[in-house]
C-alpha cells in the first residue's frame, strides 16, 4: 500500500504556490491579487507542516508554530492589504491594477 509521504505534501504545496502566483500575476482586481497572496502563504504553510512531520518528527513543533505565525501574519497582511485597496479605490475610483500605474512616475 502506498502511504502518503513527504513528496505528496510538497506537490500540493507547489501546486498551491503556482496557483497563487498565477493569480497574483494575472488578476487585474486588487482583491483577487490579495487572495492569490493568501494562496502563496498557505502553500508555504503546507510545506512547513509537512517538513515538521516528516523531517523533525511529530514530537517537535517548530514548523507548526511557524505556520501559526504565518497565519497571523496573513491575517494582518490581509487587513493592511484591504486598507491599501480601499485607499487605492478612494484615489483612483477603481481597484483595477492596470489603471493604478503611479509607480511609473
Amino acid at each position, binding site marked *: 500500500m502506498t502511504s502518503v509521504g513527504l513528496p505528496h505534501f510538497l506537490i500540493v504545496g507547489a501546486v498551491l504556490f503556482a496557483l497563487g*502566483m498565477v493569480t*497574483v*500575476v494575472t488578476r487585474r482586481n486588487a482583491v483577487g491579487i490579495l487572495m492569490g497572496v493568501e494562496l502563496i502563504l498557505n502553500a508555504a504553510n503546507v510545506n512547513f507542516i509537512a517538513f515538521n512531520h516528516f523531517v523533525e518528527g511529530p514530537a517537535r513543533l517548530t514548523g507548526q508554530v511557524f505556520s501559526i505565525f504565518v497565519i497571523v501574519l496573513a491575517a494582518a497582511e490581509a487587513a493592511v492589504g484591504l486598507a491599501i485597496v480601499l485607499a487605492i479605490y478612494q484615489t483612483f475610483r477603481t481597484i483595477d*491594477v492596470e489603471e493604478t*500605474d*503611479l*509607480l511609473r*512616475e
Partner: protein
Amino acid sequence: MNSENVAHALHLSWLWLIPFLPLLGAALNTAFGPWLQRRYGKRANHAIAVGVMVASCIVAEIAFWSMFARPAHERFFEDHLWTMWRSGSLKVDLSFALDPLGMVMTLIVTHVATLIHVYSIGYMADEPAYWRFFLWLNLFVFSMLLLVMGSNFVVMFFGWEGVGLCSYGLIGFWYSDVEKAKAALKAFVVNRFGDFGFVIGLFILFWSLSGVWNTQSRYVPEQGLATAQLGAQVEHPRVSPAGVPLGPTVEFRELRNQFADESSGVANRFGGMTLWGLPVLAIIGICLFIGATGKSAQIPLYVWLPDAMAGPTPVSALIHAATMVTAGVYMVARLNFLFALSPAAMTVVAAIGALTAIFAASIGFFQYDIKKVLAYSTVSQLGFMFIGVGVGAFWAGIFHLMTHAFFKACLFLGSGSVILACHHEQDMRKMGGLAKYTPITRWTYLAACWAIAGFPWAAGFYSKDEILWKAWTANGLAAPWVGQAIYIIGAVAALGTSFYMFRSYYMTFTGEYRGGHAGHEDKERLEDPHAMAAHAHAADAVHAHTHDEAAVDVHQTPHQHDMTHGAHHEHGGVPHESPRAMTWALVALAAAAVVSGVILGLPQLWSGHEPLLERFLAPSLPAAESVPFRETSHSTELLFQLIGFGIAAVGWVGARALYLDAKSTVPERLKEAFPRAWAVVYNKYYVDELYDAMVVRFARFCSRALYWFDQNVIDGMVNLMATIGRTVAYVDAAFDQKVVDGAVNLLADTFLYGGAKLRRLQTGHIQAYLFGALAGAIAFVIIQYVIR
C-alpha cells in the same frame, strides 16, 4: 645800457594774496552763493564779493608802498609758488611778479573793480541770480590779476584766457535772451582768433630764443632744446658777462634782462635773425599784436566789443572799458623791449591803433544807443593807447590806459545809472532832460566827458596830448612821415571823440525828458526780459505780484526777490537818481578822472621834471630810452597842447550847437540830405555783414562740407567696417549654429531618444514588475541547473 639794467627780483611771499582773494570770493559764492542768498539775503553775497575785493586792494596798496619805498632798480617783486612743469629747457612756474608796470595795472584793476563791485550792489539789486553775478565778477578780477601779475607768459596766458571766459559768462549773463547769448559767443570766438596769433608769436619767440636760423632758413636748435631732444641731461643755461642767464625762457623778467643787457648779445642776434626771409622780431611782434587786437578790440577784431554791451552795465564798465580790453596794451608795453627792436612791428601797432581810433570814432557819431556810443568810444580810445605804445611812448600808452580806466568806467557807470533812471531804456532819443532828475550822475558824466574829450586839467588832456605829441615827434617808425600821418589821424579822431561824447551828454541830460511812459513797455519786454521783473514793481499790486512770481519761478525763491524792492521801488513814470552805492562809485571815479592826470602826468614843460608816472614806470620799460624821438622846442610842444585843447573845444562847440536841448534841426536835416552816407556809418560800415559774408558764411560752408564728409566718407568707412564685421559674424554664427550646436544637440538628442525608449520599461504596472522578478528567479534557477 649797462649792467644796472639787469633786474633782480625781491621775493615777497604774500603777493599771491592779491589774485587769490578774489578767487576765494568766487569760490565762496560758487559753493554757498544760492544758499546764502536764500538764507541771509543778497547782503551776504555782496558782502563776500566786496569784502575780498577790498582786502585785495589793501594788499595791493601795501605792495605799492613797499615798492615805492625802494630805489628804482629794486622795484621788482616776485612770489614763486611752485613749478608747474619742467620739460627740456622749458620751466614753467606758478609765480607772480610786480614791477612798476604790473603794479600800476594791479592798482587800476583792484581799485576800479572794487568801485564797480560796490556799484553793482545797487545796479543788480533786482537780479534773482545775484550770487552768480558776483561770482563771475570775482572770478574775472582773479583772471585779470593773473594776467597782469603773472611773472611769465604761461600764467599771463591763463589770465588771458580766463578773462575771455569770464567776459563770455558776463556778456551772456542774461542768457535766456538769445541775442545776448549770441553776443557772448561772438566775443568768445573773435577772441579765439586773436589768441591764435598770440600763441603762435609766443612759440616763435620761445623757439628763437634757443636757436638760430641759418642762411638756408633752416632752424638750428642750440643748447638746451637740442640736448633735450636727445634725452640727455639739460645743460645749465649760459650766463652773459653781466650775469644774466641766457637760453629759452618764458619769464618776463629774464626775457627783459636778456634784451636789456647788451653784453648778452641777444638783442643783436635777434636783430639779424630771419624766418622765411622776414625779420623774426617783426613776425613775433605782429603775431603777438594780433592777440592784442583780439583782446583789445582793434581792427580787424574789434567787432565783438560793441556787441558785448549786451551784458549788464557794470560788466561793460569793468571788463569792456576799464580792464580786460586793456590787456593787449599792457602786453605790448610789457614786451616793450621786443617791440622797440622792430620798427616794422611798431609801425603796424601804431598804424592799426590810429586807424581804429578814427574808424570807431566815426561810427560813434551816429549811434543812438548810449552804450553803443561808449563802446565805440572805447574801441577808439584803445586805438589811442596803441598809438602810444606803437610809437614808443610806452608810458604814455599806459598813462592813457589808466586815465581811460577812470573816465570810461565813470562814463559806463553813469550810463548804467541813466539806463536805470529811464527804466532800462538805452536809446538816447528817449532820454533828455535828465540833469534835473539825476544831478550826481549828470555832474560825474560831465566830468568824465571833459576828461575823455581832453580839456585841460582833466586826465584825458595830458594822456592824449602826450600820445599825439609823441606820435608827431616819433622817429623810430618805418618811415619818418608815418608819425606825422598818425598824428593827423589821431587829432581828427580826438575831435570826433569830443564831438560824440558831448553829443551823448547833451542828448541825455539836456532838453526835456522824452521817454514817455507809454509805449516803451513792450519794447523793453522784448529787449530785456530782466527789465520786466523790475518794471513790475511800478504796476498795481496784483499785477506786480503775478510778475514777481513769474520772475521768481525762473530763478529763485520769493522772499529774496522781495528784498530788492528797497532799491528800485520807485520805478515809475519819472526818472530817478540811483541808489547811494552807485552814485558813490561814480563820484570816486569822476574825481580820479579829473585829478589823476595833473598829479601823475603833468608834462615836463609845466613841472620841470619828467612826469611822475613816467619816472615810476621807467624800470619796466627799458626800451623807452632807446626809441628815438625828434628834439623840438618848448614852444612847439606848447603849440601842440593848444591845438589839442582847440580840437576838444571845436568838438564840444559842435556838439553843443547841434544837440543842446534837442532844439537844433540840423542833425535831422543832415541825415535827410545824405541818407546813404548816414546809413553806412549808422550800420557801422557794414563790417559785421562783411564778416558774416566772409568769415561766418565760409566757416558755415566749411562745417557743412565737413559734415558732408563726415556723413558720407567717415560714416561710409565706419559702415563698411561694420558691414564686414557683420558678415564675418554671420558666417561665424552659422558655423556655430550648424556645426558646434549640431554636435551638442546630437549628443543631447541621442540621450533624449534613448531615455524616451527606455522609459517604456517603467510601466508602473506592479504586475509587470512581478513578471520581471519571476522571470529573473526562473532564469536564475535554470542557469543554476545549466551551469552545474
